[in-house]
């Protein structure tokens, strides 16, 4: 028996695990996956599998390649180091000889030069031989399982399923895979892997697919019956006050998502809320973010409703019609791409709601959730800046924030007045 020392605290919370958190998100997504398969058939399953598979495989290849490069560097280092030392010594002696101009320094340099080449030659030879036999070296052996691979803690599965659920059902599998690979590579891996990414990989992948393969994504393209193909949001995109949207889809249809066109997982508000409830009960996400996000959109649409004399369908369609609930509960709550303080998260979620609503009303696109998430992701470092990030609302911050909220409502309504 041995006595070891460690620094306090000596206890850890047993329930606090990254795996538990990520697994909970995957479990919360399960009802949506089942719903998507029931609604869209096996195509949905193939799309989801393609999304997860492309992300996992890309990550696997990336880590194997970086590990391979690292191992290559390690094996070289011994001999290379001695060569580098020798060259540094030469440089130093030469500099001394030139600066001081004393006989001693010159002599030292000359004597060093005389056997310099003789010293260098065998080292270079050694290095060459090492490089030749390197692949059979023991520490360069290929490891099948990579320790940084995040399949074990459900991180990549969660990203993949979320990405898959934001896609429409008729999208070619090749496009799904390209999007997934690019999303995980450019949004997560090159930033340094899990915990280091600035952008939500799922949102990034989805936006990449929208921008690169836009024509394949529009819901009408593949649907035979044109009227049933348009989502509630794209009807509103034509005319933001088009109340016929409620004739196409009743509020109950929008809420339950049965028979509704749209992305695989974004249609059923009911099941998304069930998933959100599960996450809230397990405390695996921060409830502040989705509440503020949804609340902001609701508040803005409510103000527009009153200003324009519309009926109550307007805010409800904005809540249940698009990808707002899905984005708010599963994408905006990704802790890695959120600020770390509670006020920061409230500002962040308010920004999400504002940008989403502005894109929906003024933008060319029918839906703004993923764009809003990527845009607000960029503001996270600013919201976390040490100079002003604080754990609690100060009176000053609360006053400024409420002024910003009022200003946002006024500007939105003025804008809507001119557009409408």
């Amino acid at each position, binding site marked *: *028996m041995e006595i*070891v020392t460690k620094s306090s605290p*000596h206890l850890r919370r047993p329930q606090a695990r*990254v795996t538990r958190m990520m697994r909970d998100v995957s479990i919360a997504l399960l009802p949506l996956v089942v719903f998507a398969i029931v609604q869209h058939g096996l195509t949905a399953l193939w799309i989801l599998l393609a999304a997860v598979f492309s992300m996992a495989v890309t990550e696997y290849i990336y880590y194997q390649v970086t590990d391979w490069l690292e191992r290559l560097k390690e094996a070289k280092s011994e001999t290379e180091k001695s060569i580098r030392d020798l060259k540094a010594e030469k440089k130093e002696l030469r500099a001394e000889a030139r600066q001081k101009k004393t006989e001693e320094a010159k002599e030292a340099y000359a004597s060093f030069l005389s056997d310099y080449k003789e010293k260098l030659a065998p080292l270079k030879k050694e290095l060459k031989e090492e490089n030749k036999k390197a692949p059979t070296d023991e520490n360069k052996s290929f490891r099948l399982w990579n320790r940084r691979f995040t399949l074990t803690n459900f991180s990549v599965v969660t990203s993949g399923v979320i990405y898959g659920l934001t896609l429409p059902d008729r999208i070619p599998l090749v496009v799904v895979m390209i999007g997934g690979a690019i999303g995980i590579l450019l949004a997560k891996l090159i930033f340094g*892997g899990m915990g280091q990414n600035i952008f939500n990989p799922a949102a990034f992948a989805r936006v990449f697919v929208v921008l690169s393969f836009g024509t394949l994504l529009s819901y009408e393209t593949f649907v035979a019956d044109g009227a049933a193909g348009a989502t509630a949001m794209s009807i509103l995109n034509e005319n933001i006050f088009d109340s016929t949207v409620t004739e196409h889809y009743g509020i109950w249809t929008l809420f339950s998502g049965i028979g509704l066109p749209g992305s695989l997982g974004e249609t059923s508000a009911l099941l998304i809320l069930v998933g959100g409830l599960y996450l809230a009960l397990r405390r695996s996400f921060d409830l502040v973010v989705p509440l503020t996000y949804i609340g902001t959109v609701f508040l803005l649409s409510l103000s527009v409703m009153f200003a324009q004399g519309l009926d109550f369908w307007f805010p409800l369609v904005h809540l249940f019609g698009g990808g707002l609930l899905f984005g708010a509960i599963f994408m905006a709550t990704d802790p890695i791409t959120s600020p770390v303080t509670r006020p920061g998260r409230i500002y962040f979620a308010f920004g999400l709601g504002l940008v989403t609503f502005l894109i929906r009303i003024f933008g060319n696109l029918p839906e703004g959730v993923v764009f809003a998430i990527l845009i607000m992701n960029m503001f996270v470092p600013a919201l976390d800046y040490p100079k002003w990030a604080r*754990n609690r609302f100060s009176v000053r911050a609360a006053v400024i924030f409420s002024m910003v909220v009022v200003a946002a409502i006024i500007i939105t309504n003025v804008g809507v007045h001119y557009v409408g």
Partner: protein
Amino acid sequence: MITGSKRVSDYKQLMKELPTLRHVDPEKVYINLPGERCPKYTVKVEKGDKVKLGEIIGERDGGFFKQPIYSTVSGVVEGTTEKTDPTGEKIECVVIKNDHQDTYHESITDRPDSVIADFKKKDFVEILREKGLVGLGGAAFPSYIKLDTDKDIHTVVINAVECEPYLSSDYRLIKDQPEDIFKGLSYVMQAVEAERGVIAVKKTKRELIEVLERELARFADLDIRIAELDDYYPQGWENATFEKATGIKVDVGTLPMEKGILGFNVSTCAAVYEAVKHNLPVIKRHLTVNGDAVKFPQNIRARVGTSVKELIELCDGYREDVDEVQVIIGGPMMGKSIPDDDAIVTQTTTSVLVFESAEYVEEPCVRCASCVYSCPVDIQPVSIMNAVKRNDEKSAQDLRADRCIECGLCAYVCTSKIHVTDYVRKGKALLQNK
């Protein structure tokens, strides 16, 4: 778990009910010469000297105060030796062989109540200074300096929260000697002429509240109240206790005395009674031997100077199937892990914990902000960690790393099992070195 979780499971169920073992007679005691706040000392005894219980054997020098060292047994001085102190360092100790007679020194005599009733502040201060009483909760700050405040004190708060998990020494003390605590509190109130006294206990410790309320009936003439506090960690942190018990918020960095509050740990309060009434220094103290790597955890009332090894053996020693253990003096959240078990019980030792050494696999930080939500002093441990990693002094300053009280909650709640507290400590050091 992304949540502002200040709940720490307390693992006390079994220990609370175990009776206190009276471990009164070690063969030898080792009295530490340098104390936690006193690096210098003088010894007044030599090898072969006969000493009595409660006799002065030396003096510690803490710069702005001096502190006598008392013998805790009667017997023969055997010289000095080196032992590990609660902070893990080797210190000089006087070895006294116990003659098991417990002959008290002549100065140890009871004071009649009528004499104490006339005491003023300076009398109490003089007694506490003479008896070398320090904060027994672990701070080791001389109590007489605290009592000798020139501020106007209206409330005396007795901190019996004991929020550290695994610890039950204060719990047992209150159950065993509730009267001492009330009397000690009444002396302190008399000294500073405070109007109110508050005893702060955790709401979940029902039995303690019952015991205290029964005792309170006997002190009806004093304005003493029992404050029931929520079961949070670190509720026993002085400022948190004061805020919850009296409603007065004390900021980090200001002295509670300036707000009219004087706080004492419950065991210090009992020791005040011993010192004033019986003229005794701290001879014995309650402590807990607990943890998953010790065979039979016990509550023990041990003499100051008892060897820790002896106490662990008293609990049937270490479990045999464990390869690596940690021996911790103090609680599991803030206690110090010591390098060997050749340590001694000092005045401030609240517990000896023996844990099986656990390895935690660190994962990358996912910025879940559990540490930020949990922090009792409202700083952002995760941001400080990132600042320390890039050696960014200015950010550490902006993030107010110096406010950290090292309660350990950030590392406890961390989703990725990162030792966040260590990083914040480095951040504090970064600011201090400037």
